[in-house]
């Protein structure tokens, strides 16, 4: 199979090499940004990774960085690195839409903490990327502005909801991007687009400025072409934020500290339910790659076993109560009063109703309905309440598993990228995409997807590594090993 022109991860080098070049004066930030903007201009018509490209701002920022470097300043570990930002993170003065008609054209008066931290470290925002409206979906087809296409096969979805950010990195539009992950929205598209995608421990990265979907589940994380770049991004973004009450009160985790340590002596557990027929619908080629990853780690000196997380099979129903419940409340504010779309009405309530009805797409309405129902009088205990108890069960079972294992392995997505339109008509079929990724959102534990070969259709497959709460360092350690094996295999094959 020939690789289409649209797929070219790290087209102008990974973040580390760009930052090194720009800091040392080998390349200017302006030239790096111009290269990426050219590539976007050439290919984003086909991919549609971006809702908006901030070319002028990016060039201004690049020139300012070049001046500072010329003046001998250390501009930070991401000097001149273009970054694409999922369009559900606030950027002052740049439209932030959540790919929804209800926020079309809204320019926030403030910037998300993560974006501030990245730009303070020298990164340059090149645009805002497409997503499933309000991050609700697994294919980026639920965007009010049209779907994003998978750079490896334009007829296929990039996954979702951070499909634009995953595609932007796979297409070489930016070496790194930001996604948000509520039920798998970083890891599943990372798997489908063949890039690294990380959902850090809940609270390890600030949510301030991330437009909330499911507040107790949402986490921001990076997409990159290398594990080391993800580690740098994480270290720059992470650490306590006084503006986020749920942010862990500690400095950023030193996730790059053990990337070269190997896996000798580590204990790796495959989650039984996701590696066989307990959870139905996981493709054989996906499970084959998972087994191959385990074998590779074993070869590196790790011991590999299997462990059961029995309640993980209830993760999907629990998630589809908790996330919509929180979303129904988080999205109440879109009422046509203070910002965003207003559709007129004779009184306030009619105006609110008309604005919401006209502004939200079908999937968002479906989830608001579901969440409103799950919280309503007479049903709250049976649905929302039970789901929160299942979270406890899942946490307990993971905790028990981590007494015997340092990390766990599972697929990141039950399949490779599927065709655009394939699952659009059946919400339940779409929801099943999240089956492997949801448990660690419910538990708050870190997990990431690392590319590890391709499926029967030649499309990328990622392996998911899970670790205990605040165990992001060992997760990165294992990811780096898998990356070494995968690169060696590619080189051997090439």
């Amino acid at each position, binding site marked *: 199979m020939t690789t289409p022109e649209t797929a070219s991860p790290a087209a102008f080098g990974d973040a580390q090499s760009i930052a090194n070049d720009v800091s040392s004066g080998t390349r200017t930030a302006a030239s790096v940004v111009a290269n990426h903007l050219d590539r976007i201009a050439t290919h984003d018509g086909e991919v549609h990774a971006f809702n908006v490209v901030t070319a002028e701002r990016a060039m201004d920022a690049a020139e300012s960085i070049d001046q500072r470097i010329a003046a001998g300043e250390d501009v930070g570990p991401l000097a001149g690195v273009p970054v694409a930002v999922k369009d559900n993170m606030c950027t002052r003065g740049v439209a932030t839409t959540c790919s929804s008609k209800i926020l079309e054209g*809204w*320019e926030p*008066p*403030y910037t998300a903490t993560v974006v501030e931290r990245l730009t303070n470290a020298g990164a340059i925002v090149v645009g805002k990327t497409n997503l499933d409206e309000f991050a609700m979906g697994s294919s980026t087809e639920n965007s009010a502005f049209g779907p994003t296409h998978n750079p490896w096969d334009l007829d296929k979805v990039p996954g979702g909801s951070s499909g634009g950010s995953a595609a932007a990195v796979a297409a070489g539009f930016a070496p790194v991007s930001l996604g948000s992950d509520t039920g798998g929205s970083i890891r599943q598209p990372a798997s489908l687009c063949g890039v690294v995608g990380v959902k850090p421990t*809940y*609270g390890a990265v600030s949510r301030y400025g991330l437009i909330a979907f499911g507040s*107790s589940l949402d986490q921001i994380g990076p997409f990159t072409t290398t594990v080391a770049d993800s580690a740098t991004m994480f270290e720059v973004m992470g650490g306590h934020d*006084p503006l986020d*009450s*749920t942010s*862990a009160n500690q400095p950023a985790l030193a996730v790059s500290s053990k990337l070269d340590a190997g896996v000798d002596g580590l204990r790796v557990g495959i989650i039984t339910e996701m590696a066989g027929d307990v959870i139905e619908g996981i493709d054989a080629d996906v499970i084959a790659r998972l087994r191959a990853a385990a074998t590779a780690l074993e070869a590196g000196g790790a011991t590999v076993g299997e462990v059961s997380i029995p*309640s993980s099979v*209830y993760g999907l*129903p629990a998630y*589809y*109560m908790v996330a919509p419940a929180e979303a129904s409340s988080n999205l109440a504010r879109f*009422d*046509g*009063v*203070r*910002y965003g*779309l*207003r559709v007129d*009405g*004779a*009184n*306030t*309530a*009619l*105006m609110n*109703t008309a604005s*919401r*009805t006209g502004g*939200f797409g079908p999937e968002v*309405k*479906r989830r*608001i*309905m*579901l969440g*409103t*129902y*799950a919280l309503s009088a007479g049903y709250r205990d*049976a*649905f929302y309440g*039970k*789901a*929160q*108890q*299942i*979270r*406890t*069960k899942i*946490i307990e079972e993971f905790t028990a598993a981590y007494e015997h294992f340092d990390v766990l392995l599972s697929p990141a997505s039950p399949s490779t990228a599927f065709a655009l339109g394939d699952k659009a008509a059946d919400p*339940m079929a779409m*929801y099943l995409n999240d089956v492997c990724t949801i448990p660690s959102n*419910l*538990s*708050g*534990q870190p997990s990431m997807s690392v590319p590890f070969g391709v499926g029967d259709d030649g499309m990328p497959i990622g392996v998911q590594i899970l670790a205990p*709460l605040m165990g992001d360092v060992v997760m990165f350690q294992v990811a780096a090993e898998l990356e070494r094996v995968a690169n060696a295999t590619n080189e051997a094959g090439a």
Partner: protein
Amino acid sequence: MAESESLSRDEVAHVAKLALLDLTDEEIDLFTVQLSGVIDTAREMNALDLDGVQPTHHPLGLVNVMRADELRPSIDRDEVLAQAPAVEDDRFKVPPALGEA
């Protein structure tokens, strides 16, 4: 059709009202089927024995996160009002609370 679903059309219509969504009859029919499917899956949770299991609302279990009572700058009013659908006298303008349809 709706009779066999675990949610009734009336319930779906009621929930839409609570959520300030104005659904067409066709949308109510569709949502009745689709939401019933999700609710049926959610009922699988009943198979678990959850007696005495505490709910998890916060993955990290943090408590007492507070800030000191110190002023931070407010934001520029004009920047905020520029994004509003309707403004008068530096305030957000909305239709009357009780205007007749």
